[in-house]
């Protein structure tokens, strides 16, 4: 290591002096500030190919230290992801021979009304959950930000739902919204109102799933907003108040514009996670039925795209078709994220 002329991270920048560097580097030396700069200049003069390979070798202990994550990532995430690309062009039942079928799975996908219905279900559930969730999170964050006492307590309360087991929540919501014997219908009956068939109506099924997701993730987003709020200088609020702005005006004219990057972040994250709803409908609507498992409940109203993928791959053992479903869905998520990004970004540039 020490024999190489380019070696050594040269962390001693200013103290290394003109004498240690190659002759050609003498001129810029005095202006050289932090030592970090040095390696960037040096390779240019140190021969045609100092090579990234060399640099990898030089930093091998660091690479070794971070390697476990990347090894696990490539074995358990990267390889399976790439493998599904291959699978999407095959017909395969899991143990038999694979058979190359070209784009046939995608052609099936195009003609499959259940696939398109699952996309519609997913989008409706996503809108029903994300919009109220982010709005309520913002309001909650502003409220908590303005409190002086028990702030730590509120933060813990907000965070707890997001680390609660999803299966437990789904079972609990199933009991609360149950058609005949649920808590909500018991209250409605107690108030002499007619009970709502929450778990069998096409729209209320989606509403129940969206409510579950909202309940779980509102607090998490509120915590992120809270962090963003604390970065807004208090002088701005004072100035607004001096100019006679009320709390609502301040919220819309100061808080929201300054939080825009944070809002963009939560919108992207909520889009990616909200479109991947799977456990909620799977637990709510019997996954263990022998005749028709994972069908998404009455009228398939809770059949999200990922649940449909799971049903095709693991109940019907049609792994090629399952892979085609997730790749088509991946493209859709990508599209929606890009649209979101564009919408929020453009507004930011305008002022």
């Amino acid at each position, binding site marked *: 290591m020490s024999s190489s002329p380019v070696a050594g991270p040269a962390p001693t920048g200013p103290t290394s002096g003109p004498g240690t560097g190659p002759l050609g580097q003498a001129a810029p030396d005095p202006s050289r500030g932090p030592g970090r700069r040095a390696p960037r200049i040096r390779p240019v003069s140190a021969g045609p190919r100092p090579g990234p390979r060399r640099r990898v070798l030089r930093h091998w202990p660091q690479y070794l230290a971070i390697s476990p994550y990347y090894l696990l990532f490539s074995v358990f995430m990267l390889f399976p992801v790439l493998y599904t690309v291959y699978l999407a062009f095959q017909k395969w*039942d899991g143990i038999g021979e694979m058979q190359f079928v070209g784009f046939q799975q995608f052609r099936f996908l195009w003609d499959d009304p259940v696939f398109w219905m699952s996309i519609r279900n997913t989008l409706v559930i996503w809108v029903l959950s994300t919009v109220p969730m982010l709005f309520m999170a913002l309001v909650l964050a502003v409220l908590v930000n303005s409190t002086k006492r028990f702030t730590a307590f509120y933060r813990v309360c907000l965070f707890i739902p997001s680390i609660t087991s999803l299966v437990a929540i789904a079972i609990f919501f199933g*009991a609360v919204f149950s058609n005949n014997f649920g808590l909500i219908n018991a209250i409605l009956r107690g108030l002499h109102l007619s009970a709502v068939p929450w778990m069998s109506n096409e729209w209320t099924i989606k509403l129940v799933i969206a409510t579950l997701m909202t309940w779980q993730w509102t607090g998490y987003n509120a915590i992120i907003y809270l962090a963003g709020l604390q970065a807004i200088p208090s002088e701005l609020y004072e100035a607004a108040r001096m100019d006679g702005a009320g709390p609502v005006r301040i919220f819309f004219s100061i808080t929201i514009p300054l939080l825009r990057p944070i809002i963009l972040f939560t919108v992207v994250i909520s889009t990616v996670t909200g479109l991947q709803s799977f456990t909620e409908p799977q637990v709510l*609507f019997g996954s263990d039925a*022998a*005749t*028709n498992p994972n069908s998404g*409940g009455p009228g398939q109203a809770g059949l999200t795209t990922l649940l449909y993928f799971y049903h095709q791959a693991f109940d*019907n053992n049609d792994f090629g078709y399952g892979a085609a479903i997730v790749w088509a869905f991946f493209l859709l998520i990508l599209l929606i994220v890009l649209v979101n990004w564009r919408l929020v970004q453009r507004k930011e540039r305008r002022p």
Partner: protein
Amino acid sequence: MDLSRRRFLQAAVLTAAAAGATAACGGGSASSGSKDSKNLTFWYWAGGLSDKVVADAKTHFSDITLKTSVVGGDFKTKLLTGLRAAQTAPDITGIKGEDIASFLPNANRFVDLNTVGAKKLTPDYLAWKLKQATTQDGKLIGFPIDIGPCATFYREDLFAKAGLPTDPVKVSAELSTWDDYFKVGVELHKAVPKTYLVNNIGSVFSMIVGQGTRRFIDEDNTFIGDQDHIRTAWTTAVKPYTLGIDAKINDNTWNAAIGNGTLGTELGAAWHALDISNAAPGTKGQWRVASLPGGASNLGGSFLAIPATSGNPEEAFKIISWILSPENQARGFTDAALFPTAPAAYKLPALTGGDAFFGGQKTIEIFGPAAEKIPAAYEAPADAAVSAPYYAELTSIEAKGKDPDQAWKDAVSQAKQIAQRQGVK
């Protein structure tokens, strides 16, 4: 700085070495486990066999070390994954009744049980059940653990309230056809307004399909789900919905409904008795069992199989046939409500006794004859996948009030698409 880095590296190298060694050990023991003819691994699921019989099998075959794993979660997926390599595959495994057809195209992954001594035992077991595990060229890949002969469970007290016959023999006679059954349902609902006849129409549909010899795909791998036998089953299944005697339960409220008198009858297999008694212990003594309207039908019933990589197929089959002997099947009935597949067991005291939950009724008088009358149907590998849209559309009728004729058209067109994807003509 230097020192700590060196120490860090040492630690990292040691950790890596340890991880490698563990992995190597793991690999070694697993491969020796399945190649060894004296150590056999055995997979089944909780409730899939009588745990007492399995424990006795370990002592009975003392020269073999039987290592049992009660596999939780999605059993089929885990078995599919396990079968991919000899090291991970079990030597004996359970296969659920609803999955057996999907394993038939890969029969070469299993030992043909006829080659290890099943041939001389098969006459003692129900032929229609063995057919489910037999390939078209005659290989037997699974030996039947249990079956699910279906019957009508009914609430004697509610029937009495409605002035209907209450004795199982009379009820069975009264309910000989589906139309008779629905007529009784209308009377029952009129007399006791909160009581419905069936929990959902999907259950009626599956019973009627099970009463025929043809299902959704025939032996020539042709889709027949649009033909008269399925259309008739559909039309009959929709009747309770139009008559207003369908409770439309498609969620987890069944448990409560069965206990509070919302359901006056329940169609189900013999093992379903356990679900009812678990969900509604308070109704003990009020239920009775009558035969199924329209003939015998089966729902479920699992198998034991030997993967082709098994270390000792002969010994494995000896263990299987011991666990599934008529005497041990009778114990399975007592311990885990597994209805025997060997008719000889129906005469044993464990089955001929009265059941207190059913007011002391000897339920074998209903289930025994039903078990032997179940038609031998051809169930294609893609049968479950192709039948799914019919059940989904039946729930659409119940949930959205979808027009039954439109639902039928949608179900058939979806089923055809799935059939095409699954390589059915």
